[in-house]
C-alpha cells in the first residue's frame, strides 16, 4: 500500500518530479563520467609510467630500492622468474644494472646501464616500442647497446658508432667495454631519454663480473589491476626466496603522490557538488511535504499512523533518488563506454602528458566503483536526510495538520 501510494504521489506534480529527476540524473551522469575518466587517466598514467620501463612490479634484494648497489643480487632468481605462472602475471624479465660513464671521444656522460634479456624484456616493458632509429636488442646481440635520444645527442653519437663504457664491477674492479649503438629510443620522458641505456644481460654479467646473478626481476600482467591483486602471492614468493616484492607505488611513489593529490582535490569538488545537489533536491522535496501537511492530517484522521505516513514520504524520496540516480548511471555508463572506445585527445598537451607516459588519447575506465560511488553517495545522503521530513511527520497532530494552509 505504502509503496504504491508513494509511487503515485511522485507523479502528482510531474513537472517538479521530472525536474528533480533531471537534476539527480545529470549530477549522477557527471559523477559517473568524471570518476571513470579520472580513474582511466590514473590507469593510463600508471601503465604508461610503469610499463615503459619499471614493469608493474619488481622483485629486488632487500634494500636495493634505497641503495641500488650492483653487489645486492637476487638469490633464487630462477624461482622468481617463474612468477609468470602466478595468476595475473604474464611475463617476468631479469635485469642487472649499474651506473657507468659512457664516452664518445672526448665527450662523456654518466648514465644507468641496464643489462636486459632481449628475449624476455619486450614482454615486460614497452621501451622497445619507442625505438626511433635502428632496432631494439636481439637475443643474438652481444656488444650492443640501445640509448635514449637525449643521451645520444649529448654524446654526439650516431647509429653504428661505438661507445665506451666504464664502470665498477661486482668485485670492485673496473668494468669496461666497448659497445655498438644499435638503436635509439625516444620515449618522450626526458629523464629516461637522457639517462637510460640497455645492453644484453649476458654481456653485462660478464663485463661486471657477476656470474649469472641479477639485481632485479621485473614483471607484468595483461591487466594492471590483475598484478595488484596478485601482490599477496608475489610477496609470499619473494619472502620464500629471500627477496622483497615492490608494488607499483613502491616503484613510482611520485605517481602515487600525484594521483593522491589530484584525487583529493577532485573529491573536494565532487563533495561540494554532491552537497549542493542533495540540498537543492531535499529542499524541493521538503517543500512538497510541507504543502501536503493538510492531507497528512486527513490521513491521520481516518486512522493512518504518523509512522506510516512518514514511511510513505520517505519512500517517495527513495524512489525518486533511485530513479534519478539509475537514469544518471545508465546514461553516464553509456557515454563512458562510448568514450572508452573513441578516447579523448588533448591537443597541445602532448609534451606534458608524454612526461607521464601518456601518448595521444586518454580513455576513461568504467568500473562498478566509478559507476556507483558518486550516485550512491547522493542516494544515500537523500535516504538518510529524508528522515528529517519523516521525523517532522511523526510530530504532527491531526488537528493542527488539517488546519495547515
Amino acid at each position, binding site marked *: *500500500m505504502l509503496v504504491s*501510494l508513494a509511487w*503515485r*504521489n511522485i*507523479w*502528482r506534480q510531474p513537472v517538479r518530479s521530472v525536474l528533480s529527476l533531471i537534476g539527480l540524473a545529470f549530477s549522477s551522469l557527471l559523477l559517473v563520467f568524471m570518476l571513470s575518466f579520472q580513474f582511466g587517466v590514473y590507469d593510463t598514467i600508471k601503465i604508461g609510467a610503469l610499463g615503459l620501463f619499471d614493469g608493474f612490479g619488481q622483485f629486488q634484494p632487500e634494500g636495493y630500492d634505497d641503495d641500488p648497489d650492483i653487489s645486492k643480487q637476487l638469490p633464487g632468481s630462477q624461482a622468481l622468474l617463474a612468477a609468470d605462472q602466478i595468476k595475473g602475471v604474464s611475463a617476468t624479465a631479469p635485469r642487472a644494472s649499474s651506473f657507468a660513464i659512457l664516452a664518445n671521444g672526448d665527450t662523456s656522460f654518466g648514465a644507468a646501464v641496464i643489462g636486459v634479456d632481449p628475449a624476455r624484456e619486450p614482454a615486460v616493458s614497452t621501451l622497445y616500442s619507442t625505438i626511433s632509429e635502428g632496432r631494439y636488442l636481439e637475443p643474438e646481440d652481444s656488444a650492443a647497446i640501445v640509448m635514449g635520444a637525449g643521451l645520444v645527442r649529448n654524446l654526439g653519437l650516431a647509429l653504428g658508432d661505438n661507445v665506451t663504457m666504464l664502470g665498477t664491477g661486482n668485485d670492485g674492479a673496473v668494468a669496461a667495454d666497448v659497445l655498438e649503438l644499435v638503436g635509439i629510443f625516444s620515449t618522450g620522458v626526458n629523464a629516461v631519454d637522457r639517462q637510460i641505456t640497455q645492453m644484453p644481460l649476458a654481456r653485462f654479467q660478464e663485463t661486471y663480473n657477476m656470474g649469472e646473478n641479477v639485481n632485479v626481476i621485473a614483471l607484468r600482467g595483461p591487466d594492471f589491476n590483475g598484478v595488484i591483486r596478485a601482490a599477496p602471492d608475489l610477496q609470499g614468493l619473494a619472502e620464500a626466496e629471500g627477496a622483497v616484492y615492490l608494488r607499483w607505488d613502491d616503484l613510482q611513489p611520485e605517481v602515487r603522490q600525484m594521483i593522491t593529490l589530484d584525487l583529493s582535490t577532485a573529491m573536494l569538488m565532487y563533495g561540494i557538488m554532491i552537497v549542493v545537489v542533495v540540498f537543492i533536491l531535499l529542499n524541493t522535496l521538503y517543500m512538497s511535504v510541507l504543502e501536503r501537511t493538510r*492531507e497528512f492530517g*486527513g*490521513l*491521520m*484522521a*481516518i*486512522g*493512518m*499512523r*504518523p*509512522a*506510516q505516513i512518514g514511511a510513505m514520504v520517505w519512500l517517495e524520496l527513495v524512489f525518486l533518488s533511485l530513479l534519478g540516480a539509475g537514469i544518471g548511471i545508465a546514461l553516464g555508463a553509456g557515454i563512458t563506454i562510448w568514450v572508452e572506445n573513441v578516447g579523448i585527445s588533448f591537443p597541445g598537451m602532448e609534451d606534458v602528458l608524454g612526461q607521464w607516459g601518456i601518448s595521444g588519447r586518454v580513455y576513461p575506465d568504467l568500473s562498478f566503483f566509478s559507476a556507483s560511488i558518486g550516485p550512491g553517495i547522493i542516494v544515500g545522503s537523500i535516504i538518510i536526510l529524508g528522515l528529517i521530513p519523516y521525523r517532522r511527520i511523526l510530530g504532527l*497532530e*491531526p*488537528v493542527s495538520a*488539517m488546519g495547515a494552509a
Partner: protein
Amino acid sequence: MKPIVSCRGITKVFGKGELAVHALRGIDLDIMEGDFATLAGPSGSGKTTLLNMVGALDHPTAGEVAIDGQPLSGMSKSALSDLRLNKIGFIFQAYNLVPVLSARENVEFVLRLLRVEPAERRRRADEALAEVGLQGMEGRRPSALSGGQQQRVAIARALVARPRIVLADEPTANLDSTTTKELVDLMYRLNQESGITFLIGTHDPRVMEHSKRHIEMNDGQIESDTRG
C-alpha cells in the same frame, strides 16, 4: 442503550494568559448508540473543537473523553490512530480524499489499513460505493468527480469499516441544495437501516430537519440538547 461517546467536564483552552481562548467550558455529553445527532451553533461556539475531541483528533485541556467505554487520555498517537481506524468514521467539509487514488481505492484505503484481504476489500468497497449511489464510478479519481460525488466517496469511506460512530463536520457546506438533500437523505437512511450512529456538526437547517437529537452550542457550552 449505552453511550458510544462519553464526555465529562471537557474543557479546551487555546493559548495562554491574556491571549487564552476558552473553546470548550466543561462539556458533559453522551452520544448514544443509534443517535442521529446534529451539533449546531454560531461560528466559534466550539462545534468543531468538540467534534475533534470526540474524534480523538485533539486532546482536551481538562476532562475525559471515552469512546466505547475506553478513555482516550494517556493513549499514544499510534493507539489513537488505531482507535480512529477501528471505531470512528470521518466526513469532512473538504472531503479529504487522497487525490492519487480512485474512488474505489479511497474507500479501500481504510480496509487496507485494517489489513482486510484484497478480494474482501474490493467487494466491501464496491458495496459501499453502490450504497452511496456511485456504482460505475469506482475507477474515477477525485478530480474527475463533482463535489457531491466526492462527498459520497467520503461517506462510503467513513462507513466501509463499519465504525461505531460517524463524525461529520459541515459535510454539506460546499454542496448545492439538491446534492445536500441527497446526502442528508443518504446519511439518515444509513442511520435508520444500519443503525450507524451519526454526530453531525452543521449550520444547515436541511440537515437539522432530519436530526433525531439536536445539540445547540454557544460560547463553548451546551445550550440545549433536545430529542425529537
